[in-house]
């Protein structure tokens, strides 16, 4: 069968398979959160009974759980995540819609730089195997793996923001790249380090194989050997690391956005959790799981493209 057609069919099948997964996540999250003790309107001072009843009624919390569930799923199918319980006058769709572009910009720049620099550093280290350059690159990688972004970012802010005055410590302006530099570095460092290690290890293995020796022996320049023959198989482990990398960047964005004062959606997860803002937390869980599911799908396709031995039809 034509490989492209097979890829397309595989993509559609998997996409159809993702819908029930997402539906299960929505259902589980909905009922778990309603089983929790306490509600979004519990505050330090107790509200009068009538006010409470009116609030419950306004948000539909007085109806049976199954009716609420039906309404929620119905609205969700129209792209409506419901009203936020704590940010009055805002719907969750609005809150997420405002923050998502910032988070997306931050995350995609971080992912792209982690990929490009990680692959370059990994190749460099493999070519300098057991020499100074290799040791330097791998020491950097250990630092990246070991030190979490919520330590890296304040340290960078202290050095480059407060002492050197080169970059802003925190804050955000539309279309300003200066405000994104430190958060991107802090977010990209952990996945970058892992990617560099993966590429180094797989590159070393590929460089030992017979077809690479043949390519070198027939006099091809090193650059051609690396780019044309060695790179594609050496990238396979990176492709399977992509989904964890995205998860790591999403997790990191929770703290990085709050430290750097970026108006993304990362802060809503923790704030929503602490405030018992049911609809906001549900919205975040749905958005993030959908993103991860799509990412997993793209990774499988990428894998099939990198490695022609992968069969898609079974």
């Amino acid at each position, binding site marked *: 069968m034509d490989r492209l057609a097979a890829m397309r069919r595989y993509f559609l099948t998997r996409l159809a398979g993702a819908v029930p997964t997402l539906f299960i996540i929505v259902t589980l999250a909905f009922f778990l959160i309603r089983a929790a003790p306490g509600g979004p309107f519990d505050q330090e001072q107790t509200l009068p009974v009538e006010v409470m009843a009116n609030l419950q009624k306004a948000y539909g919390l007085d109806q049976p759980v199954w009716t609420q569930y039906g309404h929620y799923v119905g609205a969700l199918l129209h792209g409506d995540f419901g009203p936020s319980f704590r940010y009055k006058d805002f719907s969750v769709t609005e809150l997420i819609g405002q923050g998502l572009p910032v988070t997306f910009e931050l995350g995609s720049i971080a992912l792209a730089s982690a990929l490009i620099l990680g692959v370059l550093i990994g190749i460099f280290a493999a070519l300098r195997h057991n020499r100074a350059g290799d040791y330097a690159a791998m020491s950097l990688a250990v630092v990246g793996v070991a030190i979490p972004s*919520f330590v890296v970012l304040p340290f960078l802010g202290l050095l480059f923001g407060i002492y050197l005055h080169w970059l802003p410590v925190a804050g955000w302006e539309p279309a300003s790249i200066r405000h994104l530099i430190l958060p991107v570095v802090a977010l990209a460092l952990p996945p970058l380090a892992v990617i560099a290690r993966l590429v180094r290890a797989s590159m070393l293995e590929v460089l030992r194989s017979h077809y690479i020796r043949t390519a070198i022996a027939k006099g091809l320049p090193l650059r051609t050997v690396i780019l044309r023959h060695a790179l594609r198989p050496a990238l396979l482990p990176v492709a399977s690391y992509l989904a964890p990398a995205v998860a790591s960047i999403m997790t990191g964005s929770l703290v990085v956005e709050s430290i750097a004062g970026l108006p993304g959606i990362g802060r809503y997860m923790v704030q929503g959790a602490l405030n018992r803002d049911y609809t906001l937390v549900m919205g975040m869980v749905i958005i993030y799981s959908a993103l991860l599911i799509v990412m997993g799908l793209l990774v499988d396709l990428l894998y099939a493209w990198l490695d022609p031995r992968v069969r898609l039809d079974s």
Partner: protein
Amino acid sequence: MSALLGDAARRLRSNPAALCAMFFILGMVVLTLLGPWLNPNGSDSLDWLHVASRPALQSAHWFGTDRLGRDLFARTLEGTRVSLAVGLVASAVSLIVGIGYGAAAGYIGGRTDHAMMRIIEILSGLPLIFFVIFLTVIFGRNEYLLFLSIGAVGWLTMARIVRGQTLSIRHREFIEAAVASGAGTARIICRHVIPNVIGPVVVYATLTVPQIIMLESFLSFLGLGIQEPHASLGTLIAEGAGEMEAAPWMLLVPGGFLAVLLLSLNVFGDGLRDALDAEER
């Protein structure tokens, strides 16, 4: 076996980075245990005369104080102690669960193995940090829940490694002999499989300690983990990050401790792994 361990110890001794990391770890453990005797200040006693004071060796507060006049040295040591304890306990939990699960899956094999590995695959695909945050919404902030959820993350990789090791010894003669002499499945797993896979697995466990410490301090940083008046390195860093312009030492002291601790644990774990499996080089 002892010759193998001797070889490994020799390789470890010839790795200066790993040795250095080991001394750092030992030093920090000793410091957290002896700290309360070295330092006259308690971790939650307030000194109103020295609020947010700078670090100075000749003053009573070597690393300075925080906004409430609490001694930063004492609080950082308490935080390090908490982080180390969480790291060790949660790693032990994940080790036990992972060994049981992985050995059972690898030894029984077939459909059971397939189903058990499929569960691990699904769980490791989820961003567990969101799961943990979600749980804190449902049950409120609770330190036991925190340990439980951290342990729940740790055992997945461990189970995979144990299964791999189990598969590699499954068809060896001593297992066959045990089967032939009529030992039951549970007995074979406990008496014959687990003792023979435990060596390499313990090495990998040293690498889960820093991961778990990182997760704990991440949650504490977000305000979902260890609560006041107790200190964790994560909560101290969160406080310090808010004050870094006026009182940078409040960030640098706990941040530095966490960075050195995680770095040493990682370097030591890597060194131990390289020492035990020489083929890597």
